[in-house]
């Protein structure tokens, strides 16, 4: 019953995407290729990117930047969250700043990064960090806050060392929320990264997109965009796998 439901959903999802491609294909019959190139041209371009090492390197580069930025935001955000958790006063001072940062558009960070810093990679890292840090911090803080006081007291009654408490209680309770936080921030980061790459990158999906715009090559623009979508899909799949792995006890209970 359940697997049927999932299959049905998958079929519907594929059908809707095929429908979109079909509409595009029909449009390509009526418009010049620089506006609506045929689907086959886009597919050919996508294939080219995936099979040419040189082009695929651009995809990897962008993926690395997304991942690096998220990792940085995760580590700094985790640290900040612990800090805020430890002191209400600190939270009262730092939260407004994070909320303020959250309101700054990615493009503003691009301008700031270009003026402040020289290295291209550092500029990109900075932009990725600043745009994802507030959300990561708030999400981790929320996860820590919602941790079970009951389990905490129970564990404490055995007098664990700090590391034991972290490994046996904090980590297992926080992992599901941390995965969710990554999921949410991943989509955000994938959108921001192409903007961040406008700071003078000479490689990466953002750089390639800019080139396609100058060449008026719509097939290329779409093909490069699809790389990002593909990257997000792959990462989501990995996160789902991790989630299923860490939450397998829930699956067991649902089957029971």
């Amino acid at each position: 019953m359940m697997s049927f439901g999932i299959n049905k959903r998958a079929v519907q999802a594929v059908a809707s995407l095929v429908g979109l491609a079909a509409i595009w294909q029909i449009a390509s019959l009526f418009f010049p290729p620089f506006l609506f190139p045929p689907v086959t041209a886009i597919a050919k371009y996508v294939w080219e990117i995936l099979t040419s090492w040189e082009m695929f390197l651009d995809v990897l580069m962008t993926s690395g930047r997304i991942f690096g930025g998220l990792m940085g935001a995760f580590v700094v955000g985790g640290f900040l969250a612990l800090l805020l958790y430890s002191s209400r006063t600190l939270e009262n001072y730092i939260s407004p700043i994070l909320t303020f940062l959250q309101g700054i558009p990615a493009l503003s960070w691009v301008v700031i990064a270009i003026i402040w810093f020289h290295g291209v990679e550092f500029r990109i890292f900075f932009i990725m960090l600043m745009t994802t840090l507030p959300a990561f911090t708030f999400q981790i803080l929320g996860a820590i806050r919602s941790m079970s006081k009951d389990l905490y007291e129970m564990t404490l009654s055995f007098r664990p060392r700090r590391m034991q408490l972290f490994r046996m209680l904090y980590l297992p309770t926080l992992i599901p929320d941390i995965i969710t936080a990554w999921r949410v921030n991943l989509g955000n980061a994938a959108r921001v990264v192409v903007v961040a790459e406008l700071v003078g990158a000479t490689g990466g999906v953002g750089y390639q997109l800019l080139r396609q715009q100058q060449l008026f090559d719509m097939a290329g623009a779409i093909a490069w965009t699809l790389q990002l979508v593909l990257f997000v899909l792959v990462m989501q799949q990995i996160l789902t796998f991790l989630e299923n792995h860490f939450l397998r006890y829930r699956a067991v209970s649902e089957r029971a």
Partner: protein
Amino acid sequence: MTNVVEFTSVRKTFRSQTDGGDFVAVDDLTFNVAKGEIVAVLGKTGCGKSTMFNLLSGLIAPTSGTVRTNGHDPFTDFEYFRGRIGIVFQNDRLMPWRTALDNVLLGLEILDRPRQESVEIAKGWLARLGLSAHENDYPHALSGGMRQRVSLARAFAVQPELLLCDEPFSALDEMTARDLRAEFVRITKQNHNTALFITHSINEALEIGDRIVVFHRPAKIAFEARLTKDTSEQEKVQLREKIIEVLAGEKRMA
């Protein structure tokens, strides 16, 4: 006889959320628990029983007076109590991501006991509590009674010098609770454990305690009685009447 637990003129106040004044949860409480004794603590909800437990388990410090377990202060001497206290709570407090066996292993893991030996001990406890077939089940898949058995096994597994039970069976149906009570007394006596057992059921107190202590609010002793093997049913009935009177007496004062 050595005392495992010693409360001396313990007072615990909480800052009131509403008026900022002090709310007295425990007032001038003095009492001892001797080694090997099972003391049942009776009292109405909110009379400070759990607060007394938190003082004993070192989660909070007394406002004044002293709390000692084996002569050590549970709040400041945090390290000393590694593996010496076992607590069974009203709710089972099992870690949902650990199997029954792994939940029982928690305390032993914290004490750095060798893995092989720990697994054997944990399996032994699950067997004694009739859960051998459920070692690898996750808590979600177990009934309330089974889960509470696992949490009993978890507390017993570290061979604590002091067992603290905070209404552990009150959420279970009467049949299950009765079985577990009998098992609890049997195991505690076999192991010569010292135990403090909180309950709001007079029958449970009579079944479990070597001694019964009745609390009035704020936690202070209003009545105390000792039971032995020789205590007759007749005497228990009288005791029961007396306890009801003491508990009811508080209502009139309040």
